[in-house]
């Protein structure tokens, strides 16, 4: 019966080639990297595939955020605002990269805006689905959470390193001014 239901919905909503491509993408996303084919069977149905045009907004800084996006194809720009309110490009992300993962664990508004630079296919993964996955399949949920913690820890370490570099640069600049 499961096969019947599965085949029915598969024929309607996804194809095998599409699923294979998605599995390949997910394998390269650190949050899902160590999930096996069996575990991906529970993850893929809760991902939301979306098609975006070039220039289309994915989300805006300050909006409520509830999940992360994975880039299957295309490119997106992560934008912020400087102190004068002008738009600043933080990063350009391309396929098999992801963004918005902090929203899976906090209840804060989005910290940056994301706009598609080209026509893109994105997969959304949202907090209610993650919580349901943790509830129903704790082993898979724990793996994802652990990977997510790993990614966020890595980002924090990077930020600390950059902060220390900046502090060293400021100290050096102050030292230079003092000696001159």
């Amino acid at each position, binding site marked *: 019966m499961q096969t019947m*239901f599965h085949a029915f919905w598969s024929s309607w*909503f996804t194809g095998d080639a599409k699923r294979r491509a998605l599995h390949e993408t997910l394998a390269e996303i650190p949050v899902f990297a160590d999930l096996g084919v069996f575990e991906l069977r529970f993850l893929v149905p809760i991902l939301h*595939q979306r098609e975006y045009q070039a220039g289309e*907004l994915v*989300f805006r800084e300050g*909006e409520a955020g*509830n999940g992360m996006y994975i880039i299957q194809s295309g490119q997106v720009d992560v934008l912020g605002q400087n102190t004068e309110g002008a738009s600043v490009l933080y990063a350009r992300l391309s396929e098999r990269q992801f963004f918005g993962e902090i929203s899976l664990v906090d209840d804060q508004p989005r910290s940056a805006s994301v706009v598609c630079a080209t026509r893109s296919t994105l997969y*959304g993964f*949202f907090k209610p689905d993650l919580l349901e996955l943790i509830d*129903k399949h704790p082993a898979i949920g724990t793996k994802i959470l652990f990977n997510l913690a790993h990614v966020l820890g890595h980002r924090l370490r990077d930020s600390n390193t950059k902060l220390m570099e900046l502090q060293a640069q400021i100290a050096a600049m102050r030292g230079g001014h003092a000696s001159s």
Partner: protein
Amino acid sequence: MRTLYALVLLAAAALTLLALYKLGLILLLGFLLAFLLDPLVDWLERRHCPRHWGALIVFVGLGVLLALIVMTLIPFLQQQLVDVAEHRGDYLAILKNRVDHLHELAVRYFPASAVEAAQAKAESLSVEQIQGLRNSIPAVLSWLSHLVFVPIVAFFFLVSGAEIKKWVISLLPNRYFEMTLMLLHEVNTQLGGYLRGQSLDCLINGFLYALGLFFLGVKGGLAIGAAAGIMNAVPYLGPILGSLPGMLSLMLDPNAVMPWWSVAILFLGVHLLDNLLIYPMTVGRSLDLPPFLVILGILFGGSIAGIPGMFLTVPLLGMARQAFVVFRSSLKSYRII
């Protein structure tokens, strides 16, 4: 284009459901039943039971439970019916006595012309009601036969509900899909909590009514109590309507020890206990609707779909209110308004 497609589809679905009113009600009842049973299927799924098998196990379990209840109740109800048929004359005599007593009181305190007019009106009304009741039997039976489809629809929603939700969301424009996802999640959580809480409330109330009626010596007290428990799901009117068969039973029973108004006291007591303790613990304030809106909704639901309409109004109103509240706050947090 996607918005237009979604709107056309939504309008077509609404029109179809409106045209096929019975189908709409069956879908709605199936949807609500799926909501009620979802935690059981989830529980089995957490224990590595595939969802379709979980749904099947839950339905087979429910079927067995229902069969056991029916098998226990049928001989009991049969005995009650035989008893009523055997003592039909006695009951009618008591009823006539009560009506004559009422008539005497009316003649004593009201003008004769008014009493005669009221009597004529009551006679014509009772004839109309009995005629109407007779005519509605085939319609009720047809309704009951349609109810067979409710578990099938519920099974379908339980197994494929997530896919259906995902498909509906896929039709929405990119700008609104994340917000809609959260909206559905919030409504789902609130409505699920309400329906499950309300079911538990009905069960506890039904048990208390049945126990009370049994001790008051009401014939068929257990069945009347269980039915009153279900009626309790209709706010305000439910407990009043639920108490009538018990009062009538004591009123017509020549061997009754307790007076008919003891049933009213029992219902009042249980209702107070429900309002002060049971309802806040089971349902809480999850669907905090204004009483006026609830009464208006019940009357509207009753006029559209009879008793099922009265039962469905409150969860539907709650769902609409919750959707509106979450929708408005989502529009703000997503900076759409």
